[in-house]
């Protein structure tokens, strides 16, 4: 991991439907890091990703990705959208068809897929452990398998930055563990940078190099051990949650401060 920033956001403000979603935020993502983006619902996490992807325009401030304005680095960014956003389960495409879509890009409109595309597709499917399901209909996969297929699609284009938007929503706890281990493996083997939006505060803080906690503004930004000090999570979440530290460097559960035994794990 280097100190070179591949994402630089400065004074960014986004207003959607008359509401301020992001308010003058400044942050960066280091090359080779695994960065977690956390925050309560409506905090602007997904909006930030969409700004970085060029899908949403800010009203103020700048965002640079690989030194370019958002939308100018298509081939360098792999994107994994929220599972719920990706089509109905009856869409007639196989896992292989979906993964191969990762080879598309603005520089190669038209024509057919070639052998290099097929090889890259196969390698990407093997990387996420889905090669044996290549011919299976995408919609027949479980939630966790679908997310892995979408990661393979993102990896198929050879990205240097992987952006994931709540990839573990609807995935069971065991599958989540496998999922995060797979991400860590991909990060090491492909030397990529990963930024991941998640609600799993406990899990994510134990996995990432850097943690960013958003709630319209940036509440935390730094290594999780440092960032979780001083009760900033509680402030970001509106004093509803707190991180419980197990031993040293193992931040885990977030608990409702005023709850009566209803732990979230």
């Amino acid at each position: 991991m280097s100190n070179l920033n591949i994402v630089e956001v400065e004074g960014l403000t986004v207003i959607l439907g008359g509401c301020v979603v992001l308010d003058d935020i400044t942050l960066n993502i280091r090359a080779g890091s695994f960065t977690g983006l956390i925050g309560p619902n409506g905090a602007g996490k997904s909006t930030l990703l969409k700004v970085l992807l060029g899908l949403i325009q800010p009203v103020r401030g700048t965002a640079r990705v690989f030194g370019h304005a958002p939308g100018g680095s298509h081939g360098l960014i792999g994107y994994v959208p929220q599972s719920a956003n990706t089509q109905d389960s009856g869409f007639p495409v196989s896992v292989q068809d979906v993964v191969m879509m990762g080879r598309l890009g603005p520089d190669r409109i038209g024509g057919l897929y070639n052998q290099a595309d097929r090889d890259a597709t196969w390698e990407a499917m093997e990387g996420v452990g889905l090669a044996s399901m290549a011919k299976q209909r995408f919609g027949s996969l479980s939630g966790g398998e679908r997310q892995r297929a979408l990661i393979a699609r993102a990896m198929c284009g050879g990205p240097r930055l992987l952006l994931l938007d709540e990839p573990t929503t609807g995935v069971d706890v065991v599958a989540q563990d496998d999922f995060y281990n797979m991400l860590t493996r991909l990060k090491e083997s492909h030397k990529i940078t990963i930024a991941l939006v998640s609600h799993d505060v406990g899990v994510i803080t134990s996995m990432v190099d850097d943690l960013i906690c958003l709630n319209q503004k940036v509440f935390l930004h730094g290594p999780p051990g440092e960032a979780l000090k001083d009760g900033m999570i509680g402030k970001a979440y509106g004093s509803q949650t707190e991180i419980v530290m197990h031993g040293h460097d193992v931040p885990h559960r977030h608990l409702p401060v005023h709850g009566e035994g209803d732990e979230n794990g």
Partner: protein
Amino acid sequence: MAMMCPTGICPSMERGTRMVDMLSHGFMQRALVAGLIVGTLCAVVSVFVVLKKLSFIGAGISHSAFGGMALGALFGVNLTFSAMAFCVGVALLIGWLSRRGGVSEDVGIGVVFSSSMAMGVVALGFSGDYTVDLFSYLFGSILAVSSSDVALAGGTLAVALVVVVALFKELLAYCFDEEWAMVRGINTRLIQDILMVLLAVTVVVSIKLLGIILVSALLVIPGAVGRVLSENYRGQMALSLAVAQVSTVAGLYISYRFDVASGASVALVAAFCFFAAVAWPRRRA
């Protein structure tokens, strides 16, 4: 057994019940060739209409053709070309409305569709001395297809096939996950416009045979049958082509044999295929 044409349009014509008798007439040969071309065109476009859930847009564009034709009648322009220009304009307008937001897509289509029809009625009212066989345009007629219509349909099919083959993977990615396609740098706005224009030209070249009201049947049903019966888009495309051709040939024969509007008979055969497909026992993975 032979029968006389009950419409009175062709009083001296005797109709045999066999297919070979049907094909002995020049107008039926033209109708059949046009039907096979239009069926292929509709089948290909239908796959994307179903994948991208554009059924209502297809109906909106086809109904707006009435406005285009009526304006052509008012200004003395060739009806096919006036409908083509009007439908392409309407298709692009619907695409723009759906991207712009502010109103939901179905509301935008509903407004464009009804105002186009209204414009058509007003234009027909002003072109008082113009006599149009409205029934034929609304529901299709095997007698209405001319050699130039066949040539236009053939040319349109050739261009459409080139476009679809060249952009197939982009079209599929757009239908599967539009936002993601945009992130990959695919010009989804251009892809959407291309799809809308394909829809518009398919509607216009199909109108003579299928009618303004019923052309949407072949824009939806073949692809829908393929979707119901197939696990992948290749099978969906193959089944869509098969259903469109069977519906067209059988529908034209029924139209000839029983002297009913060709659009209605084709649509009914297609609808039968759809319900048979839905009822067909199948196993999903």
